[in-house]
């Protein structure tokens, strides 16, 4: 399967054409680069912002619930605990995965990949690449909690009697999803594989 690499060929980021053209893709006209420009800088900036916002997203309440004049607040974590208490473990697992595990796994995974690229850590590139594809695929599922909040809020609205509303963490959580998705998009995975060319035992 392997063909001897030719240094002249490049992949177009717009239409994925492999081309020997110099400045622009002959098929779709997108500017050609060896690697995505400033990939690491963009990715770090988005990732660090997301990691900071992860704290308010997890500590502040994400929903408020009024029952007969009494208002209670739920954070992501306490919402999951109450699902377990109400004997809905399967739903609790889904919400835990989408709202807690996925955002944290995204931040840790991307940090690990970025540090491996910059510090040349001897981690398995195949494993990190697989992790990167999983992050790309599963990252969008964090939207689940926001969809649920919008559905519940639009159905339970009876004033002081019974009322469900979002709370401040919802916005922070939306920002975490947006920023981590963009960070993964900005990261060029080919930089990871470029490490193989650098060592002297080439």
């Amino acid at each position, binding site marked *: 399967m392997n063909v001897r690499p030719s240094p002249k060929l490049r992949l177009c980021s717009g239409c994925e054409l492999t081309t020997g053209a110099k400045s622009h893709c002959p098929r779709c006209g997108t500017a050609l680069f060896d690697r995505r420009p400033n990939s690491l800088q963009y990715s770090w900036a988005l990732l660090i912002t997301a990691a900071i916002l992860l704290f308010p997203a997890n500590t502040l309440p994400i929903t408020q619930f009024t029952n007969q004049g009494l208002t209670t607040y739920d954070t992501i974590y306490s919402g999951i605990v109450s699902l377990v208490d109400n004997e809905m473990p399967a739903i609790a697992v889904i919400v835990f995965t989408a709202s807690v595990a996925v955002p944290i796994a995204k931040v840790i995974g991307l940090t690990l990949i970025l540090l491996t690229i910059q510090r040349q850590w001897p981690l398995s590139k195949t494993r990190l690449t697989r992790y990167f594809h999983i992050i790309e695929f599963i990252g969008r599922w964090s939207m689940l909690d926001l969809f649920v909040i919008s559905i519940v809020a*639009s159905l339970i609205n009876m004033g002081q009697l019974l009322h469900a509303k979002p709370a401040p963490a919802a916005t922070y959580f939306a920002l975490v999803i947006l920023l981590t998705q963009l960070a993964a998009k900005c990261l060029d995975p080919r930089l990871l594989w470029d490490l193989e060319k650098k060592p002297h035992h080439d």
Partner: protein
Amino acid sequence: MLQKAILCPTCDTLISKATLRHGIKAYCPRCASQVYHQPYCDLAGLAAMTLAALMIYFPANLLPILEINLVGNLRSTTVLHGALTVFEQGYWLVAIAVILTGLVAPLLLMLSILCQLWLLKTRRYPHLLRWLLLRHKTLNELCMIEIYLISLFVSIFKLIDIADLTYGWGILCYILLFIMIFYVQYEYNSQRMWDYYERQAES
């Protein structure tokens, strides 16, 4: 002109391209990422599925997807109603995210694919076709019908203890919409579309 060799988008290895049977995927020998695949159906089949998805889109989003009976008060909701509720409560970023990923992106994706197929068939406006093809990936990632459907089920389980739920035609249409869009996304192949675009541009 079909390409003989391609570079892996994940690790930049040059791979010689082999013709695949339908439904078969090719993986990179170096980094094990999927590099290309051969879809099952032709463009006519894709057009049929996209049209079906577009037809079911409107009842799925106009009919109530969920109805509840709260101590004698009937409440019903749609995707848009859910988003507008959180918008009115001041959470406009959440509302925009819901509208964009649950409502606008799926519609634009189906319209874009239909438009691309029409432009290929009639050999018209190659610039518009290129513009649509370049934006396909973003639109595809923003379309989150499958996540919305699972959210709907999670909401049902959360609400089932507080209120009586009824399921109308809306939720059935929404499940059908999910199935149609799932198949459209599975059968749509960017590389094939670009190949057709290139052949059209050459002739």
